[in-house]
C-alpha cells in the first residue's frame, strides 16, 4: 500500500533555489518590463532576468522569464534540428515552445513548417489556425496555411490562402510560386500562368523558368513546360535541369516510339553536368528501350556508380547485358538490383521484370533449377500486378522522375535557388552553446517547479533534460526529488540509488531515497537507507519509525515514535501523520482527533482535510467529504490525489459532468495517472458515453494492468458497446483476480486503507 507522504516531506526533498514572495506592485512592474524587453531579449538575458526576479521573490515573473528563455532556445534549436534533417527533434522543440507560447506567430510558423516536413499537414493546420485568429493580417501565416492545405489535399483552400497572402504582400515570389502550383492542381491553367508571369517579373532568370517548367511538366502541361524550359535555355544555354526536364517530358508522354527527343535532351544535360545521376540513368534507360544496348551500357554503369544504393540502374543494366548475351553479368546486376529493392510493392514493374531477366540468364547458363525458381517468382509477381507493364513503365518514369513530393519541399528548393548560400551554414559551436543553455534553463525551471511544489511539471522538465544530459550537475538529485514529490517512486528509486552509491554522505539524497522506498512500501530498504542516523526532520523520523513498525521491530518503533512526539509536541505535520497512521489502523475516531489537532496548529497543513474527507466518505457523508476535500484542494492545488478523491466523491454524488471536469484537469497535468483514467472512464460511462469511457479504461488498464474493479468496469462498457466477447473476457479476468485463492495485492487498495 502506498502510504501518503505529506507535501512537507516533498518540500524537504531536493530544495534548490528559494522563491520567496514580494509585494504585488513590484511584481507587476517587473512583468511589464519583461514584456517590453521581450522582442529584443535573447535567452541568456531572459535567464538572467529570471534569476533577478527570483531573487526579488517575484515568482510569477521569474517563471515567465524562464519560459521565455526556453522558448527562445527551443525555436533556435528547432530550426537547427530541421536543417540537420532531424525534423522529429525539431517538432518536439516546437511543440514545447507552443505549449508555453501558443500565441506566438514564430512558433506557429515553425510548428507548421516542421509538421509539413513530417507529412502531418493536419497538425500544421491546427497550429496555424490559432495563430491566424490572433494575427489575421500576417502574410507568412496565410502562406504557411496555404502550404498546409495543399499538403492535405485541399488545393482550393490552399489557393485561397495564397491569394490572401498575396493581398497582404503582393509579388512575394514564394507565394506566387505556391499559388501557381495550387492553381495547376485545380486545373486552372490561366490562373497559374498569371501567377507565374508575376513570379517571373519578380524573380526573372533562367532558374525560375526551369522551376516553372518543371511544375508545368508535373501537371501534364507539356507545351507550357516545353516553352518555359526552352525559354530558360535561351536565357542561359547552361541552365541546369532544363534539358533533363525536356527529356523527361518526351519519355513520359511519347511512350516507346518517340524517344529520340528524350535522348537528345539527356545528352545535352550531360554535356553540362556529366555526373548528373538522373540524366545518366534516363539516357541509359532510353537507349535500352531503343535497343541500343552497347550505347546504353556506359551511362547505366555510371548511374550505378553514382547511386550505388539504387536498384534502378542495375535493372536496366541487367537487360543490357542480357541482350549482349553476357549472362554472368546479368546475374550479378539482377541480383544486386533485387537485393537493393527495399520496397517491392512500389517497384513492382522493375522487380518482376528483373526476376524474369535473371531467369532467362540462368536458363542460358544452363542453371535450370535456378531459372525455374526465378521464373516462378516472376510469374507470381506478374499475377499480382494490377497494371499493365506499359502503365507500370509510365508510372515508373513518372514517379521516379518526380523530385519533390510536397510544395514545402518545392518551396525550399526555390528558396535554395534564391537564398544567400552563405547564410545557410550552421555553426556547430553555436549549437552546442545553445544546447548547454537549454539544459541550464530546463534545470532552473525544473527547480522552480519543485520549489513551487509543482512536481509533475518539474518532472517533465527534468525528464527532458535527463534524456539529453543525464549527468547534468545536480540533476539527478533534483530530478529524484521531483519524482518522489510526484509519487513516481518507481522512476525515482533507481536514480536516487545510483546517486547515493556515488555520494553516500549526501543526507538529502539518502533522505529522499528513504522516502521513496517508504512510498513503495519497501520498509526493509527504508531502514537500510535511513537507519542508524539521526534525522532532524519530522517526516523522515516518522517514516523510519513506521518502517520499524512495519518490519516487526516493535520496540525500536515505539522508541522512535515516543522520541518523535516528545520532540515535536506542536507539530501540525506530525499530528497529520499520526492521523494517517490511525486511519490506516482503521481507528477513525483517533484519526479525526489527530487531523483536527493538526489543523488547529496549522489550518493549511497538507492532507488533514483530505484525511477527514476520506473518513467522511467512508461513513457515507458525501457532502461533508466534498467540503473537506474542496478545502484541501483549495489549499493545495498541486495535490492531484486530493483532487482525484474530490472527483470521486463528486461522482458518487451523481454529478458526473463535474466529476469529469475535475478528472480531466488532473489528467491534463498528469496523463499517466491510472486511477484518474479509470475514474474518468467510470464517469463517462455514467454519462452514457461508452466509447469514450472505453478509451479511458483501456489507458488505465495499460498503465496499471489487472486491476479488478477496472476490469469489471471494462466488462460493463464492452457489454454496452455490444462487444460481448470482449466483455466476457474482461469479466473472466475480473473473476480470476477476485477469487479467494488470489487475494488482491495491496497496491490495488486505496492509499487511505479503503478498498476501492
Amino acid at each position: 500500500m502506498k502510504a501518503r507522504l505529506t507535501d512537507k516531506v516533498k518540500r524537504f526533498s531536493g530544495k534548490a533555489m528559494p522563491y520567496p514572495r514580494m509585494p504585488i506592485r513590484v511584481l507587476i512592474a517587473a512583468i511589464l518590463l519583461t514584456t517590453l524587453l521581450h522582442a529584443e531579449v535573447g535567452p541568456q538575458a531572459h535567464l538572467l532576468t529570471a534569476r533577478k526576479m527570483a531573487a526579488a521573490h517575484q515568482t510569477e515573473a521569474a517563471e515567465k522569464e524562464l519560459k521565455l528563455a526556453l522558448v527562445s532556445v527551443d525555436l533556435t534549436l528547432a530550426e537547427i534540428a530541421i536543417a540537420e534533417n532531424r525534423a522529429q527533434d525539431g517538432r518536439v522543440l516546437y511543440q514545447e515552445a507552443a505549449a508555453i507560447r501558443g500565441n506566438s506567430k514564430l512558433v506557429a510558423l515553425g510548428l507548421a513548417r516542421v509538421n509539413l516536413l513530417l507529412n502531418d499537414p493536419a497538425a500544421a493546420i491546427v497550429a496555424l489556425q490559432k495563430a491566424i485568429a490572433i494575427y489575421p493580417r500576417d502574410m507568412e501565416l496565410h502562406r504557411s496555411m496555404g502550404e498546409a492545405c495543399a499538403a492535405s489535399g485541399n488545393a482550393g483552400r490552399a489557393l485561397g490562402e495564397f491569394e490572401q497572402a498575396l493581398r497582404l504582400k503582393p509579388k512575394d515570389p514564394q507565394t506566387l510560386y505556391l499559388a501557381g502550383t495550387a492553381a495547376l492542381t485545380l486545373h486552372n491553367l490561366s490562373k497559374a500562368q498569371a501567377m507565374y508571369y508575376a513570379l517571373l517579373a519578380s524573380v526573372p532568370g533562367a532558374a525560375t523558368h526551369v522551376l516553372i517548367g518543371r511544375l508545368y511538366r508535373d501537371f501534364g502541361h507539356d507545351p507550357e513546360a516545353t516553352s518555359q524550359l526552352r525559354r530558360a535555355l535561351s536565357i542561359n544555354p547552361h541552365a541546369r535541369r532544363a534539358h533533363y526536364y525536356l527529356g523527361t517530358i518526351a519519355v513520359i508522354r511519347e511512350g516507346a516510339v518517340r524517344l529520340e527527343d528524350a535522348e537528345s535532351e539527356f545528352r545535352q544535360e550531360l554535356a553540362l553536368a556529366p555526373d548528373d545521376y538522373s540524366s545518366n540513368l534516363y539516357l541509359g534507360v532510353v537507349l535500352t528501350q531503343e535497343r541500343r544496348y552497347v550505347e546504353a551500357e556506359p551511362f547505366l554503369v555510371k548511374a550505378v556508380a553514382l547511386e550505388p544504393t539504387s536498384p534502378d540502374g542495375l535493372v536496366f543494366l541487367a537487360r543490357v547485358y542480357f541482350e549482349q548475351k553476357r549472362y554472368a553479368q546479368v546475374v550479378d546486376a539482377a541480383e544486386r538490383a533485387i537485393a537493393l529493392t527495399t520496397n517491392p510493392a512500389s517497384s513492382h514493374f522493375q522487380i518482376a521484370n528483373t526476376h524474369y531477366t535473371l531467369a532467362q540468364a540462368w536458363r542460358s547458363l544452363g542453371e535450370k533449377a535456378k531459372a525455374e525458381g526465378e521464373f516462378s517468382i516472376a510469374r507470381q509477381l506478374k499475377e499480382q500486378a494490377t497494371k499493365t507493364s506499359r502503365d507500370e513503365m509510365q508510372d515508373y518514369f513518372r514517379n521516379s522522375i518526380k523530385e519533390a513530393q510536397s510544395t514545402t519541399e518545392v518551396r525550399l528548393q526555390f528558396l535554395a535557388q534564391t537564398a544567400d548560400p552563405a547564410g545557410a551554414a550552421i555553426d556547430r559551436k553555436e549549437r552546442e552553446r545553445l544546447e548547454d543553455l537549454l539544459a541550464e534553463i530546463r534545470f532552473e525551471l525544473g527547480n522552480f517547479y519543485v520549489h513551487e511544489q509543482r512536481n509533475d511539471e518539474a518532472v517533465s522538465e527534468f525528464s527532458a533534460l535527463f534524456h539529453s544530459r543525464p549527468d547534468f550537475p545536480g540533476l539527478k538529485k533534483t530530478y529524484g526529488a521531483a519524482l518522489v514529490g510526484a509519487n513516481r517512486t518507481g522512476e525515482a528509486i533507481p536514480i536516487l540509488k545510483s546517486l547515493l552509491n556515488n555520494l553516500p554522505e549526501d543526507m538529502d539524497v539518502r533522505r529522499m531515497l528513504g522516502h521513496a522506498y517508504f512510498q513503495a512500501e519497501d520498509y526493509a530498504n527504508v531502514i537500510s537507507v535511513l537507519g542508524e542516523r539521526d534525522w532532524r526532520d519530522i517526516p523522515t523520523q516518522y517514516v523510519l519509525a513506521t518502517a520499524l513498525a512495519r518490519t516487526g521491530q516493535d520496540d525500536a518503533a515505539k522508541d522512535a515514535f515516543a522520541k518523535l512526539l516528545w520532540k515535536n509536541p506542536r507539530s501540525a505535520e506530525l499530528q497529520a501523520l499520526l492521523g494517517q497512521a490511525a486511519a490506516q489502523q482503521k481507528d477513525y475516531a483517533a484519526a479525526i482527533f489527530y487531523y483536527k489537532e493538526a489543523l488547529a496548529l496549522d489550518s493549511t497543513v497538507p492532507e488533514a482535510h483530505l484525511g477527514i474527507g476520506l473518513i467522511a466518505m467512508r461513513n457515507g457523508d458525501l457532502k461533508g467529504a466534498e467540503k473537506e476535500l474542496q478545502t484541501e484542494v483549495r489549499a493545495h492545488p498541486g495535490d492531484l490525489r486530493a483532487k482525484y478523491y474530490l472527483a470521486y466523491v463528486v461522482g458518487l454524488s451523481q454529478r458526473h459532468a463535474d466529476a469529469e471536469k475535475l478528472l480531466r484537469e488532473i489528467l491534463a497535468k498528469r496523463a499517466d495517472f491510472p486511477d484518474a483514467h479509470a475514474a474518468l472512464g467510470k464517469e463517462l460511462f455514467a454519462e452514457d458515453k461508452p466509447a469514450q469511457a472505453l478509451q479511458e479504461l483501456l489507458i488505465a488498464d495499460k498503465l496499471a494492468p489487472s486491476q479488478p474493479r477496472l476490469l469489471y468496469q471494462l466488462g460493463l462498457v464492452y457489454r454496452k458497446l455490444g462487444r460481448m466477447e470482449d466483455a466476457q473476457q474482461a469479466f473472466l479476468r475480473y473473476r480470476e483476480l477476485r477469487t479467494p485463492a488470489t487475494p488482491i495485492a495491496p497496491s490495488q487498495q486505496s492509499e487511505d486503507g479503503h478498498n476501492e
Partner: protein
Amino acid sequence: MSKSRGHYGYVFVVFAGCVFNALGQKRSTPSAVQFTDVTSQVGITFEHTSSSEKRYILESMAGGVALFDYDNDGWLDIYLLNSCTVETAIDPHCARSALYHNNHDGTFTDVTERSGLEYPGFAMGACTADLDGDGSEEVYVTGFGSNHLYHNKGNGTFTDITTKAGVAGGDWSTGCGFADYDRDGKLDLFVARYVYFDQQNSPKFGEGKTCQYRGIAVQCGPRGLPGSSDLLYHNNGDSTFTEVSKQAGVSDEQHLFGLGVAWFDYDQDGWPDLYVANDTGPNYLYHNLGNGKFEEVGFPLGVALSSEGNERGSMGIAIGDYDASGRFSIFVTNFAEEYDELYKMAADGSFTEASYTSKSAQSSLPFVKWGTAFFDFDNDGWPDLFVACGHVYPQMPAQVSGGSQPYLQRKLLYHNNGDGTFEEVAAVHGAALLVPRSSRGAAFGDLFNNGNVDVVVNNLDGNATILRNDGGNQQHWLAIHLVGSGFNRSAIGALVRLRANGRSQMQVVQSGDSYLSQSDKRLHFGLGSAVTAEQIQVTWPDGQTTALNSVRADQFLEIKEPEPK
C-alpha cells in the same frame, strides 16, 4: 487451276526486285504479286455492325471470319461473324452473320438464311471441324452471352446443337479451337474467354485510369474489369461434351483476358499443346502431359512475355516454321506501341524472342494488330506474315498521335527473306493493303483454287475485305488436303513436312487460328522454282505416318489417312 506464268514472269520478278517501295525501303520481293480488294466484285455485301463510338470494350473486339468448305464441293466458303452493340445485345437477332457459298467462278452467294447460321447472337469468332466423322465440318461460334455449336447436316444447312452438346460456354468467349488433346480419336474443344462484362456495373466511359488513353476518354478495360476463365470441353463421342478445364489445368485460374487460341504440338511429342494469347497478361503455353492434363510452361519456355519481361496486349496467333528449322515458331500480334512477338523455337525446346532480329518488330509498333498468319503469299517457299490492323478507340485523332497510328489502320505484309528476317512490303503489293480500316479477324485460304493464298478480313464498322492474291502462283505451289480417319476427318493436328528445293517446310492442320478465325485447312506450300516436292511426310494425329515422294507441284493433293490396322 492455273499454273505459274513461267519464264517471263520470273524475269519480271528479278527486275522488280530493285524497285523501292513506298516506305523508301529497298525490297527484294516480286511486286508482281498484288492483293486486290475484290469484295464487291465477288458479291460479298456483308457489313459488320457495331457502335461507331465504341463506348464499351465489348463493341471493339469482335470480327472473326471462317473459311471452310461447308458443302464439301472443294471450294472454300466464307462465314463472316457479326456482332451487336451493347444496347442491342439483348435482341437475339441484333446482328446478322453471313455465310457465303463459293460459286467456283470467282463469285460468292449469300446463303445464310437457308444455312441456319444467320443469328448466332453477339458473335465473336469461329472455328470449324468435322466432329462426327461424316465429312462435313461443324462450326462453333463464340460470342457474348452464349456460344453456339452448329452441326452440319451435309445439305447446306446447320442445326444448333449447343444445348445438347453442352458447350454453350457463357460469359464472353473469344478464340476457339478443336483438337484431340487426349488422342482418343475425338476432337475436343478449347474456348478462351475475355472479360466478365456487366453493363449495369461497368465503369463509365472515360472515367478512371483504365478508361483513358493518352489523356483521351475511351472505353474501359480490359484492365480494371474482371476477367473470365477459359474452357476445355472433352468430346464424349456421343455429340456431347464435358467441361474439364480445371482437371486438365487449363482453366486460367488467374482469369486473364483470353483472346487468340492455337493448338499445335510444339515439342512434337505427338500430343497437341495449346497456346493462348492473353490481352495485357502473360500468354499461356500449355504443355500436354499426355494424361489428360496440361502444364503451363509459358514462363520457363519464354513465350509468356516479351524478352524484357513485359506482358503485352496480345490478340492473334500464327504458328509456323518460318526459318525452316523443323520447329514451330509463334508469332503473336499485340497492341500499339508493342511490337509483335516472334518467338523462335530453339533446339532445346525453349523459345527466344526474335522480334527485332527478324526485323518484324519495328514497323509493327504504331499499329494495333489482330488477325495474322504465316502464309507464303508469293510461293517462294518461305512463309510470310500478314497482319490485320485497326485501333480500338474511335476517339483517336485522325493523325498519328504519339506512338500510335490513328483509329483506321492499314494492313501489314511481311515478306520472309529466307535468312531469318522479314521485310514489311505492303506498300508494293497492292493499294488495297494500304486502305485504312478497323480490321480484326483475318482468314487465309485459296478462295479461287488457283494456287494463290487469298485473305479475307473482317472489319468493324463496315464491309469486309476480300483480298485476292494475284500473281502468287507465278511460282510453284502445292496444296495438301488431308482427310483423317475416324471422327477426325478434318485431320486436325496432323503435321505435314514437305521437302523441296533441298529445304524442308512444316505445317500443321489447325482448327481455330489467327484472331478468332478459321483459315483454310488445306495446307498450302510454296515451292518456289521446284516443280516437284521431293518428299511429303504426314504425321497423323494418332501417330501414323504417310510418306510420299516426288509429288508434282501446282495441284491440290488429297491425302487420306490409312485406316488403323
